[in-house]
């Protein structure tokens, strides 16, 4: 590890980290926003589930680099456009979260939902006041997984020239310079930890009852 190189190139390291963050934030948000309604639909309709769950499985099976190459044709974007990465990573996030969210909604259980309807909730209120809050903890766990895998996948974009911490992998390899690659790996892990902390804190703020229940049990 050559720390003088790290110090000398701090500007570029920060710039690439920022680019990395910019490409990652949107897919994490979008996958949660898109996956929850899809999962709710799949949870309530057997026929929708039979189509949606396998589709999410297939999406998840698509390899990342080929998908980055394929999307420009589908979207009409240029190959270097970061939008390709955003769309690809959102697809992966949705695929991963749909499964988690369907399981989460299933686990809420019929009886609880019937009880909620019986005391006068409308179906919409059942979703917002009963199902979504109860499905919160597994959704939070799923979002943490999406965040970690998104941050590590972004760097693959470096192979087709989209700037991110992955640049240090391709450049470091071409120069035979391990320090540079280490900077990329450590930077990615640091970003993953920061994102994880933010998601956990956001989860605590949005789902305060989870901690309260834990404390009572513990």
């Amino acid at each position, binding site marked *: 590890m050559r720390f003088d190189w790290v110090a000398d190139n701090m500007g570029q390291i920060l710039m690439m980290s920022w680019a990395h963050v910019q490409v990652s934030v949107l897919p994490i948000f979008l996958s949660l926003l898109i996956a929850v309604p899809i999962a709710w639909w799949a949870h309530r309709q057997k026929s929708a589930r039979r189509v949606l769950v396998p589709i999410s*499985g297939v999406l998840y099976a698509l*390899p*990342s680099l080929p998908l980055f*190459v*394929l999307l420009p044709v589908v979207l009409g974007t240029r190959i270097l456009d970061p939008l390709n990465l955003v769309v690809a990573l959102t697809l992966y996030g949705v695929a991963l979260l749909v499964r988690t969210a369907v399981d989460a909604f299933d686990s809420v259980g019929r009886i609880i939902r019937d009880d909620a309807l019986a005391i006068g909730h409308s179906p919409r209120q059942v979703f917002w006041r009963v199902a979504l809050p109860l499905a919160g903890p597994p959704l939070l766990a799923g979002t943490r997984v999406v965040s*970690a895998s998104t941050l590590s996948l972004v760097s*693959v974009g470096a192979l087709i020239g989209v700037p991110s911490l992955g640049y240090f*992998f*391709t450049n470091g*390899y071409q120069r035979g310079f391990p320090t540079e690659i280490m900077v990329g790996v450590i930077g990615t892990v640091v970003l993953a930890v920061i994102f994880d902390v933010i998601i956990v804190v956001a989860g605590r703020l949005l789902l305060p009852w989870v901690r309260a229940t834990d404390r009572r049990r513990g």
Partner: protein
Amino acid sequence: MIQFADAFAWLVDPANWPGPNGITARILEHLWYCLLALVLALVIAMPAGLYIGHTGKGRALAIGLTGALRALPSLGLLTLLAVTMSLGLRLAIVPSTIVLAILAIPPLLAAAYSGVEAVDPDVVDGARASGLNEWQIVGRVEVPLAAPLLVGGLRSAVLQVIATATLSAFLGLGGLGRFILDGQAVADYTRMLGGAILVIALALILDGGILLLQRWLVPSGVSIALGTGRLEGR
């Protein structure tokens, strides 16, 4: 969409299939890298996972390792090993196989221990009471009952390895990633797209094949809801 037509024309052009740089050779190389890594990963993950599932020891460690590995960027791991290992640059297959195996281990490990753990304890006690020793319990009771989950783990591992073997081309190895990187080097988007379609098709075909294997492997008389074993993120 005209690019798709070009890419399909490239794919069906018989001139692009034979020879050491042809599509056939690249597919075989790709599958070979994946097979090497999967065998290495299975040899490590299966005994470890069955042990954790059977004894309940080391579970926290396995979960921690699996989570930590998820955050590690595969391209970073690949280039770092290639540059730092003494053989890394000359024999790129070594770092490539190690990294692919590292990526395949978490889903296999998770499937093995969660599959064994999911076996009804009464069934295990029953087997013990009928005189089976611990090895026989693992081999004749727990593994067959965990088979659908084990294959589910294999499915995740195969997909992960097929996808990441594409990146091995960056270390100068063959495989289908060659078409993507070589195409990019000369701004030949048709070849890049053709290569991308080949990798995606390979992944989907193998995914479908393993899914069939999984259906077929459910022990007769056992009606477990088929977990597809997507136990990890990518």
